[in-house]
């Protein structure tokens, strides 16, 4: 329904002659139609840059799960896996810091983030997770490579592992704490999707890294399990999220978001099967790792584009709000 249609004429844009039209006036009130201001968006689209922010969502998550993986691998006598995961954690974290600074409208002022700690701002909380995390993972990785100060390196790695869990899910709060319907309405499932996607990527990195290093395939069992389990949960939680969102979930199935997410599903599923079935074959294991990493990355792109599309569509904003007002009055949950 467009702006031209008036509330008193629910028949909409009617091209029939006036008399016919009057005769055809419906007696019962038809279902409420969607109205808007010339079809223009109500919300502003996120200004976050592509690929900066979707890649950060991926690399931060991968780094977080890798930091946990690294310490457990070290503690259980899997030095090659620990090495790969430590380097992955540091690399992912540093890339994340770089991407986030590059994304700012005024990069030179990035330190203004550290003026305060603010719990109502997931970006503030996230900055206070990411900053120490990147410092600790970098120290752990530097010690890993150089062999200098192994005790301090180990301590740094444990510190990073403690922040690893939050690294995988705070970004879900970051995007769902917005007015964007396809993101906000998904706030229950999004941390599960992000956490699982991070686990899948860390497992994938482990498989790939061990393959490249030529390490004994006996070490890669935990990485294979994680890759497969993460991918399975990522797929299941993503599907549940789309379903529960109803009409808004359409944004995850159409346009660029739909294409990225279809690719993600194929990649993650292929990677999971390969990880379980072929982990003893070095080439298959490494290829499965690549597929899991790519699946996790594609998931983040898909979710990002779904949010953009949702903000741009006044239907996503207006229809659920209108339904809420008609149901129970304004402001009700």
């Amino acid at each position, binding site marked *: 329904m467009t*702006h*031209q249609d*008036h*509330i*008193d004429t629910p028949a909409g844009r009617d091209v029939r002659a*006036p008399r016919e039209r009057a005769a055809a006036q419906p007696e019962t009130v038809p279902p409420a139609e969607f*109205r*808007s*201001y*010339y079809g223009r*968006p*109500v919300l*502003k*689209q*996120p200004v976050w840059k592509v690929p900066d922010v979707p890649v950060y969502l991926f690399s931060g998550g991968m780094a*977080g*799960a890798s930091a946990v*993986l690294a310490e*457990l691998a070290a503690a*259980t006598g899997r030095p090659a896996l620990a090495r790969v995961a430590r380097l992955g954690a540091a690399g992912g974290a540093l890339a994340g810091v770089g991407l986030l600074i590059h994304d700012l*409208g005024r990069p030179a002022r990035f330190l*203004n*983030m550290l*003026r*305060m700690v*603010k719990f*109502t*701002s*997931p*970006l503030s909380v996230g*900055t206070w997770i990411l900053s120490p995390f990147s410092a600790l993972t970098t120290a752990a990785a530097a010690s890993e490579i150089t062999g200098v100060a192994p005790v301090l390196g180990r301590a740094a790695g444990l510190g990073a592992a403690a922040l*690893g869990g*939050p690294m*995988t*899910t705070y970004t*879900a*709060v970051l995007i*769902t*704490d*917005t*007015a964007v319907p396809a993101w*906000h309405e998904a*706030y229950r499932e999004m*941390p599960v999707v992000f*956490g699982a996607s991070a*686990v899948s990527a*860390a497992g994938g990195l482990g498989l790939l890294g061990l393959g490249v290093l030529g390490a004994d395939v*006996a070490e890669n*069992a935990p*990485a294979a399990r*994680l890759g497969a389990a993460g991918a399975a949960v990522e797929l299941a939680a993503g599907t549940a999220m789309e379903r529960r969102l109803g009409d808004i979930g359409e944004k995850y199935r159409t346009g660029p978001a739909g294409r990225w997410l279809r690719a993600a599903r194929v990649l993650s599923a292929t990677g999971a099967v390969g990880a379980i079935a072929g982990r003893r074959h070095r080439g298959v294991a490494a290829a499965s790792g690549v597929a899991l990493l790519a699946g996790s990355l594609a998931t983040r792109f898909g979710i990002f584009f779904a*949010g953009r599309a949702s*903000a741009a569509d*006044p239907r996503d904003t207006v229809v659920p*709000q*209108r339904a809420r*007002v008609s149901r129970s009055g*304004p*402001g009700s*949950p």
Partner: protein
Amino acid sequence: MSFTLDQRLAGPLADPAAEAGYDEHPPRMGFFTDTSVCIGCKACEVACKEWNLVPEDGLDLTGMSYDNTGELGASTWRHVAFVEQTTPRRDAVDLGMPSVPQGAVEDDREVRWLMSSDVCKHCTHAACLDVCPTGSLFRTEFGTVVVQEDICNGCGYCVPACPYGVIDIRPGDGRAWKCTLCYDRTSAGQEPACAKACPTDSIQYGELDELRERAAQRVDALHEAGTSQARLYGHDPADGVGGDGAFFLLLDDPEVYGLPPDPVVTTRDLPAMWTRAAAVAAGVVATVAAAFLGGRP
């Protein structure tokens, strides 16, 4: 005065300036925009740009109506929406609205124009302010919401957080901008430039409590005069953003003017979001640990 977390995030909040930490402060100030007397002259848009030195942001024709401004944005802090509707003919109350040439009207239909000067709502619970990680967005002693441009680092978080699509990043500048409710003028006891310039008093500036009373009377008067579609928007402290500092009298559903029908401050759900994220983070750690169970195969 002390506030609970829930009061800080959503729901009615009598005194947002006190919640922000001002002990002694002036009364909460705001706008009441009575669109029933707006004539669409756009004097407010011009006065705002002039006074606040807001740069030109394109001289395009939208092709949809007399509204060639389009929407609020980083360089548009007042936006006059213009809606042309065909409605069944009825004996309309004379609101002092401009009339249209009779040739454009079918026998049983008439054309009506709705005009409304939109602006930042200066929400009681402002999502833009809540999510700002630098403290650049702050609550003034008047209870309004203002960006400190010397601090803003252009992270852009406020942009998708605003449930009204008001605030935006200015291209080439990189920082977020929006209506300040003329913080400089109001601090000096002057009314904001748009209200000053409005020739019909469609834009009224004053103490919010007083404006709410005045608005209630105006709606009653319009209802008595037969304009049953008149309704207030953003006046209710129990709504999803705790009520707006800038509220409106509309003559049709809010979405017809490009306004969300029932906006909710996203941070209302933040405690639930953090709780879930923390639980899942613990789950991630447990999952990784579980993958190491069973030792070497």
